[in-house]
């Protein structure tokens, strides 16, 4: 081998590096080096934004994240009260927990140095252990990078202008594929169960739907709600308001999924077969129930399962109460409840239709004939506005209007209708009027965002061409010489913040009087109870406060063995709280009657 002179000398050129600025970072480790702007270092959690849903804990493939109670944080509706704690003996700093955090409270910081001789000191509660970490946040999620499915599967609906041609149901319902996709968005945290007055097993039935087990979903739903089709169509769905996904996107369509699950069962026989309820032997006790509304039906169903002999007295020809007679057909078709009522009858509940208590049968008779009585009579009587001209012809109460329409009768409202109010009844009345061919305007005292009605309903109304005039306080109705209403006069209002911290109040602006022409006015500012059927001997014993029957936590009234529920006994006044009342009353009645057995 020859001598390689070039190869021997060339390496010596390395000497030219002499005197060059060294690359060495001499400050490290004495002064920590700043990490990149996106560095995945130690966790930080914004404790106020965090809702304790535990999604971080679920996604963690290393089971590094525990949910623990933290001092100073109380659980509340929409917040489990738990906060994540990271085990640094498990964490791999992949940041999936950050990307799935539905609120974006969890993030990673630029800090990365933690050295200790104690192996037990590596449990890290982000936000508690580094309260100042807010300023060091580097790896975080945004709406764009979030791994949550933020967009809801759109519900197939009739076109806005197509809808007002008839009373056909607007919402068409998910098909199987859509339902699975929508159910798959759920992160199963279960925070929603707290918002639901009935505490339905929401994540479980959604998971069952996502997994393709619709029958199991139906079974889980029926565990504490015998009227899921009602809830599936018209529930006020408080659950969706606090849905974890709603912090950044659209909440899971819990209501539509329930509707989907119940619609997969075709008839009552099949329903009975799927649920296969365990019905106890008759125990000899008889329970009378007044009103086949949601609370009465619920109480009857679960009492019947427990072996009680239940009889319902209902004034109308169909069960369902306010949902059946107060909600228009395009939201709640007439046959919606048939399957469920038939099923409830099949397990042994008797329902006497067209039997009005106080007219066809006296309350006293029921009270004395039964071992316990449950009363779910609702709020049938509307509030009046209390302004001049309300007695004019053409000034109609929205509830009565809806009742008549739902019973197939005709109501003459002309072609220019004003609806007063901002609740669901107001919107319903407006949309029904639109279907009758009228040009409809809603007057509401506060702003649109303050309307207690469902936002979907408001949007639906707007899509159907209904105008909403907000911050408008009606002061007088004017009529013609025949006593027929012609115009409505109202004042504009401004919103004044409430000094007690409540919601802002509308204050009328003097001199802002506006007059609009109308052919009919529908008042929808709320309803009240009607307890005229109570005979004198009971009237005194049943305590009624501000129009509501006073009940304890078991729905027991001040009168022995009388229970009450539904609108007439709770402040929320919606179907699902009525169902919850009925469910609670079952426990109360069982305790009362089965005492010592």
């Amino acid at each position, binding site marked *: 081998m020859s001598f390689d002179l070039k190869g021997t000398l060339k390496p010596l050129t390395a000497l030219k590096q002499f005197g060059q600025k060294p690359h060495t970072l001499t400050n490290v480790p004495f002064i920590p080096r700043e990490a990149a702007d996106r560095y995945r270092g130690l966790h930080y959690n914004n404790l106020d934004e965090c809702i304790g849903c535990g999604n971080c804990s679920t996604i963690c493939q290393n089971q590094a994240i525990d949910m623990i109670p933290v001092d100073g944080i109380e659980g509340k509706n929409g917040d489990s009260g738990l906060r994540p704690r990271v085990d640094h003996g498990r964490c791999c700093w992949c940041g999936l927990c950050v990307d799935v955090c539905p609120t974006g409270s969890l993030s990673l910081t630029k800090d990365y140095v933690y050295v200790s001789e104690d192996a037990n000191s590596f449990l890290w509660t982000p936000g508690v252990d580094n309260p100042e970490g807010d300023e060091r946040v580097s790896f975080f999620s945004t709406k764009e990078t979030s791994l949550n499915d933020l967009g809801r599967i759109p519900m197939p609906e009739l076109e806005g202008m197509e809808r007002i041609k008839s009373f056909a149901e607007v919402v068409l319902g998910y098909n199987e594929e859509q339902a699975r996709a929508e159910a798959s968005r759920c992160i199963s945290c*279960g925070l929603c169960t707290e918002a639901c007055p009935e*505490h339905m097993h929401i*994540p*479980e039935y959604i998971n069952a739907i996502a997994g393709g087990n619709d029958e*199991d979903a139906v079974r889980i739903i029926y*565990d504490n709600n015998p009227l899921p089709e009602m809830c599936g169509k018209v529930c006020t769905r408080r659950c969706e308001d606090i849905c974890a996904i709603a912090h950044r996107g659209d909440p899971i369509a819990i209501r539509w999924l329930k509707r989907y699950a119940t619609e997969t069962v075709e008839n009552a026989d099949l329903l009975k077969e799927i649920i296969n309820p365990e019905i106890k032997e008759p125990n000899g006790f008889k329970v009378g129930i007044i009103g086949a509304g949601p609370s009465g039906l619920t109480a009857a169903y679960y009492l019947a399962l427990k072996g009680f002999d239940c009889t319902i007295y209902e004034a109308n020809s169909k069960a369902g109460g306010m949902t059946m007679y107060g909600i228009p057909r395009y939201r709640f078709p007439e046959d919606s409840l048939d399957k469920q009522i038939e099923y409830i009858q099949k397990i042994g509940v008797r329902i006497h239709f067209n039997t009005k208590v106080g007219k066809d049968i006296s309350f006293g008779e029921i009270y004395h004939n039964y071992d316990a009585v449950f009363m779910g009579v609702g709020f049938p009587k509307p509030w009046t506005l209390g302004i001049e001209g309300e007695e004019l012809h053409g000034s109609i109460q929205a509830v009565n209007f809806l009742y008549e329409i739902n019973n197939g009768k005709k109501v003459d409202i002309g072609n220019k209708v004003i609806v007063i109010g901002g609740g669901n009844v107001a919107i319903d009345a407006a949309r029904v009027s639109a279907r009758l061919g009228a040009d409809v305007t809603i007057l509401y005292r506060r702003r649109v965002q303050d309307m207690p009605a469902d936002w979907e309903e408001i949007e639906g109304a707007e899509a159907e061409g209904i105008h909403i005039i907000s911050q408008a306080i009606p002061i007088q109705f004017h009529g013609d010489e025949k006593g027929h209403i012609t115009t409505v006069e109202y004042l504009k209002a401004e919103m004044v913040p409430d000094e007690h911290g409540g919601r802002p109040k509308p204050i009328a602006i003097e001199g802002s009087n506006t007059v609009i022409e109308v052919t009919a006015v529908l008042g929808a500012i709320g309803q009240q109870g009607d307890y005229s059927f109570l005979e004198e001997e009971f009237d005194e014993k049943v305590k009624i406060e501000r129009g509501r029957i006073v009940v304890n936590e078991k729905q027991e009234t001040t009168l022995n063995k009388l229970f009450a529920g539904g609108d007439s006994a709770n402040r929320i006044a919606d179907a699902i709280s009525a169902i919850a009342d009925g469910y609670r009353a079952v426990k109360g009645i069982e305790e009362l009657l089965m005492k010592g057995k």
Partner: protein
Amino acid sequence: MMMEEIKTTIIDRIKLHFSDAVEKEFSYNRLDFSVKKETVPSILFYLKEEMGFKHLSHISCVDWLEEGEFEMIFILWSPEEKIKVFIHTRVDRSNPVMDNIDMIWRQANTYEREMKEMYGIQFTGLEAPEEFLLEDWNGPPPMRRDFDTEAYAAKTYWERPGREDALDVRETVEKRTGEVLPEFAKKYKR
């Protein structure tokens, strides 16, 4: 178009020689054949020597516990035609015996050692040391789906305490609201 012609040729030739081969086509440069396990050495040999599939990309095994079978997949690559061929075969799980193919490709020896250790598949005539990745292992072949690694690890290796105070979110809310979850619904918890 070229790729389509190549695929058709391969299918025709394979079907001619191996009557039990069932093909499956893909939109990209991939072609699958399912064969009986007895056919595997001959079809591999044929593909390598006669059809230019010189490169053995991969050998894999999947445990289909529910079906009582192991699926073996041989992935070959033809440097000329630029196409992958997958050979699928099924091996009975209760008596997993396969033909050794390391005389066709020497490197198959390593794959077979691994599969023998991880799945317990016996390769007739395989010459290799008994142990590959594991040492002094006395449990069942670990890659079999009926082996529960989490339970094994929990039993065998000590875990650092201090995390027992963790609570379940769902149960915390349940407790607060008094919700009673029926037994049959529990399997749908996350």
